[in-house]
């Protein structure tokens, strides 16, 4: 018999089912892959941001320090930061002791909120860019990722560091203050293992992104990283690389990209025609292609065209 109470009970239970489903769906399934003695990597999908991946497209590195784990980059959202914090506690009960942001792109520092009571280190240029552009990035991330972003607020890095020898939570690093992917890109070489946390200066089998890029400066930075002869490269996106092939590939791609856009400008091509140009085989299989190439045409072509076309008055 359908009484008033059972009806109300049924009605009350209805909204619960979809809510539980939504909560189950929007959770990051992060795993820490051991790379070397006291070093783990959380490997991101080699894709663009989507509702399916929740923005978990970035590589995050964890290293053992004296009082906990040092965290390199914090992911794309508050929820991602929370998932990282609990993953860290499963590796070391003391959790995260110090944080580094390699640069100011949102997939690398939007989890900062969770670690706001610990020092968050970055280059001065990164801190400033996060202050200047963070809110605009947040608008776009909410649009791309929807509910994955719930509660995420922009927390810029707190502690400015310079280049050179650097101790973080008792672990020694060489800090390389570089740029080119953005105005300020920090790469850190772990002195104990020769592991290079390269940030987005290096991509591997995933197309490099260029919204804030300065390609000549980026090429110089890659040369500097190559000269350090790292034993293991952890790129910002793509698998860890013990051979250095990731640096060579990123250099090759950037050289090809710049050359293709300049040749296009010199033969009167428009952006749409360039975007439709098929990619060479060696780049066509990279993650997030051809979308990332098309985005690069939008970012870089107007400036390149101005440099290449002659004055008409």
């Amino acid at each position, binding site marked *: 018999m359908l009484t008033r109470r059972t009806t109300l009970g049924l009605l009350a239970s209805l909204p619960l089912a979809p809510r539980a489903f939504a909560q189950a769906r929007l959770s990051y399934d992060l795993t820490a892959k051991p790379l070397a003695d006291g070093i783990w990597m959380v490997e991101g999908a080699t894709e663009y941001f989507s509702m399916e991946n929740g923005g978990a497209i970035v590589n995050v590195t964890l290293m053992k320090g004296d009082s906990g784990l040092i965290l390199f980059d914090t992911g794309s959202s508050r929820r991602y930061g929370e998932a990282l914090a609990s993953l860290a506690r499963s590796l070391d009960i003391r959790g995260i002791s110090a944080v580094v942001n390699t640069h100011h792109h949102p997939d690398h520092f939007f989890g900062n909120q969770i670690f706001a009571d610990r020092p968050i280190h970055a280059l001065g240029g990164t801190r400033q860019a996060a202050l200047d552009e963070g809110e605009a990035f947040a608008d776009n991330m909410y649009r791309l990722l929807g509910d994955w972003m719930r509660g995420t607020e922009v927390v810029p890095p707190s502690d400015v560091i310079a280049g050179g020898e650097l101790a973080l939570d008792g672990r020694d690093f060489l800090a390389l203050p570089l740029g080119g992917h953005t105005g300020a890109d920090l790469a850190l070489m772990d002195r104990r293992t020769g592991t290079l946390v390269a940030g987005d200066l290096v991509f591997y089998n995933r197309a490099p992104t260029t919204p804030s890029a300065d390609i000549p400066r980026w090429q110089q930075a890659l040369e500097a990283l190559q000269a350090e002869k790292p034993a293991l490269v952890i790129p910002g996106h793509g698998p860890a690389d013990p051979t250095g092939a990731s640096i060579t590939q990123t250099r090759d791609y950037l050289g090809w990209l710049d050359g293709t856009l300049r040749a296009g400008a010199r*033969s*009167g091509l428009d952006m*749409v025609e360039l975007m439709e140009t098929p990619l060479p085989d060696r780049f066509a299989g990279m993650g997030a292609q051809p979308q990332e190439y*098309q*985005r690069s045409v*939008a970012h870089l072509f*107007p400036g390149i065209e101005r440099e290449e*076309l*002659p004055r008409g*008055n």
Partner: protein
Amino acid sequence: MFIRTVFAALIAVAGSAAVALDDPQTVLQDPMGSGMWNYHQKGLLGDPADIRFDDRVVLRAPDSAEDSLNVPLLVDATAIPDVKRIVISADYGPIPHILTYYPEQAEPKLALRFKIDQATAIRASVETQSGSWHIGSTYIDAAGGGCTAPANAYASDDWEEKLGEVHGRLWSASGRARLVVDHPMDTGLADGIPVFIIQDLSLQTEDGTPLARLELHEPVNEDPAFTFYFDAGALPASVKVMGRDNNGNRIRGVLSEGELN
């Protein structure tokens, strides 16, 4: 009861009459289903009777606008004979009319960049010499804000010196003319910045014969950039660029098949 029925009937009649009054004289089935096309068909095109959507008018653009201030678009109506003009517009946005292209001696094909304010259907409405209209469409997704942001030019203090600077070149063998003109193209929608746009821009032979002509509106991008297409070998050795903005500044330049930088 009867009175209520009469009222309902009256409202229904008035309602349908109002819709009928708003409809264009030729009602089309919009392939984009955007809900705004009927309105623009009247407002932008002057409610022509001889009008249809036509797959031969091709719009090439990215699916999504990476930079809402610089959305590339290539309109190709070369499959339509005797083109008089092409009206390029966005269904949704504070200023729908982007530009009108009069190909004159060029092919009815144009590459441009424009500012987008939100995800919207984009149209190229092609009018032939005999007055029949052929419309092509595409859809571009966008985060928005392209029309209401101040021009980037104001971030540097030398924008006035660069105003009206022309960059460009001819490629006679492939029949291309590429043109970039420095101009803020202020829409008037950013706070405290009045409308400041190039209104007319044309390519002419040395003796003033028009080769191709553009009538620009606010949504054209800052530093407007165009590729014009001609028959291979049809371009003269040099082409004059003539233009004017709404403040009376003249734009003058010459394109030729000269040295690249």
